């Protein structure tokens, strides 16, 4: 069934088809529509889940942690300040190895108060032990929401689906919604190996001494090491069933390219438009989309970018005192390529706090990098479109 829906409702449909059993959430713009729709689905019986109303995002994540520890499928959604308030419990879910799925609508962090998109809220959570998947359109949102539960439960890791505020959350477009039976065949009920059970009482999170804590951390890292291959298999299975796959990293028109944009989120879509226009003019340009930010897809990015002379990373985020975060991580991933095959990586900081990223803005970045000398290294990230 194809329906014209907003990105927020694509998440709600995905969660409903995945048959989440516990949903706990606190409203915040621009996320609220996700849980409003889920609350209606629980109310009218379309979704047999327990909807837990809570007094804060901290409590929402606490409820999800408790629910997930009993072996059920748990979901929450938030944005910006709400995600920041969850920070302590994100670590708890991560190290607790609880396969919770959360949607975060990327929204800039206050002050000043801003409800528009940028990635600083989620990127500030990069070390909390959550897989992070950034989406480009509403179909990808729905598909990724369902895939996220499969990935989370396979590896006992929490997964965060990330959507740009408004450009996805409030934008309506056609989405192919699979049938419940098709999704049931793809995603069976959760079968937790370990769970809290009142008939066989155990506890999680007891005192963990220096003698064992580090091994627990190492296992978490090993689970993250398995994410790329596990996601590849899940995505391939999805493709067989539904005819769509998304990948952790996607190369778009990069063969023979001398300059490649690296993007995430909805900027990717507008950037494809720019690449198509430039290709028509004979320019050798392409695009690499990073969907998966944690774990960072080092190997796929090396394969995608080795031998390309120049790369321009578009960062809708800033690590103050350093620079754009995707650019910074990409440089690190490419560092040990042989120097003859290692691209020059230019970073551009743009679109913060929801500032519009138009084809013209993207074109400026592309032109600036095309004009640079590929044998020299970039000095510092450039801020694009900032008033003097």
């Amino acid at each position, binding site marked *: 069934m194809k329906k014209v829906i907003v990105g927020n409702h694509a998440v709600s449909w995905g969660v409903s088809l995945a048959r989440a059993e516990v949903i706990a959430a606190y409203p915040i713009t621009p996320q609220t529509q996700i849980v409003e729709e889920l609350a209606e689905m629980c109310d009218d019986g379309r979704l047999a889940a327990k909807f837990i109303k809570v007094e804060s995002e901290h409590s929402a994540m606490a409820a999800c942690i408790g629910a997930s520890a009993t072996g059920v499928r748990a979901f929450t959604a938030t944005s910006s300040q709400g995600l920041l308030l969850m920070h302590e419990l994100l670590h708890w879910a991560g190290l607790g190895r609880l396969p919770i799925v959360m949607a975060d609508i990327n929204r800039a962090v206050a002050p000043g108060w801003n409800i528009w998109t940028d990635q600083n809220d989620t990127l500030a959570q990069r070390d909390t032990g959550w897989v992070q998947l950034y989406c480009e359109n509403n179909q990808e949102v729905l598909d990724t929401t369902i895939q996220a539960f499969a990935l989370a439960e396979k590896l006992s890791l929490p997964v965060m689906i990330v959507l740009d505020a408004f450009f996805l959350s409030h*934008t309506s477009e056609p989405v192919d919604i699979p049938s419940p039976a098709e999704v049931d065949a793809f995603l069976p009920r959760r079968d937790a190996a370990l769970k809290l059970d009142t008939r066989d009482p155990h506890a999680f999170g007891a005192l963990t001494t220096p003698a064992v804590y580090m091994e627990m951390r190492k296992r978490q890292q090993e689970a993250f090491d398995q994410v790329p291959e596990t996601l590849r298999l899940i995505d391939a299975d999805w493709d067989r069933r539904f005819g769509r796959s998304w990948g952790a990293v996607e190369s778009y028109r990069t063969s023979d390219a001398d300059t490649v944009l690296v993007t995430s989120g909805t900027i990717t879509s507008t950037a494809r438009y720019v690449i198509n226009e430039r290709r028509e003019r004979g320019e050798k340009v392409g695009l690499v989309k990073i969907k998966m930010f944690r774990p960072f897809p080092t190997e796929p990015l090396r394969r995608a970018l080795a031998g390309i002379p120049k790369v321009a990373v578009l960062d809708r985020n800033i690590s103050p005192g350093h620079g754009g975060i995707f650019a910074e991580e990409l440089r690190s991933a490419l560092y040990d390529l042989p120097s003859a095959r290692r691209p020059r990586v230019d970073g551009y900081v743009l679109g913060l706090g929801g500032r519009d990223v138009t084809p013209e803005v993207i074109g400026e970045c592309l032109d600036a990098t095309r004009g640079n000398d590929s044998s020299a290294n970039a000095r510092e990230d450039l801020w694009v479109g900032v008033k003097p």
Partner: protein
Amino acid sequence: MRELRIHGRGGQGAVIASKLLATALFLEGKSVQSFPAFGVERRGAPVTAFLRTSDGPILLRCEITKPDGLIVLDPTLIAAVDVAAGLKDGGSILVNAEGGPETFPKLAERFRVGTVDASAVAREYGLGSKNQPIVNTAILGAFAAFSGIVSIDSVCRAIESEVPFKTADNVTAARAAAGLLRTSEAPALAGAAAREVTRG
């Protein structure tokens, strides 16, 4: 690709209008994308919503600043805000108004103007209240007749699938309004009314 902007006041249904029109065009096999102005909305305050439609895939995910056409749900907005800001030469404007296109001479100089008394139609079919009629379905019926980019049947099918309350009245209002459209000649400046689109 065509880009449209819808002006209304909070509560008149501008955002729903953009979604209904997107659904109607989708039912005709077009690619569509619709979204509200990204901001904080209040009842009675000016509201805008947007729509892109194309035969091919829509890749742009940025704001619409140079629309090909406008739909104005409240004629008082024409004095209150610069509704024609960024409208392309040869663009078209459909206004919910009692008077005909000649009552908007400044707009008619530069653009093709259509009017329909959607408020009266909405009141007639009991949509919204007497003082605050909900005019979105009526004006979309007139838009089908005005623009030629979508059929009245598709608009009605979209209303049937998306409007859960007073569905039949909304459909009838749309059909009635389509018959009440009044249009101006396209100004000479505009050249061909159906302007080719520059961004795909």
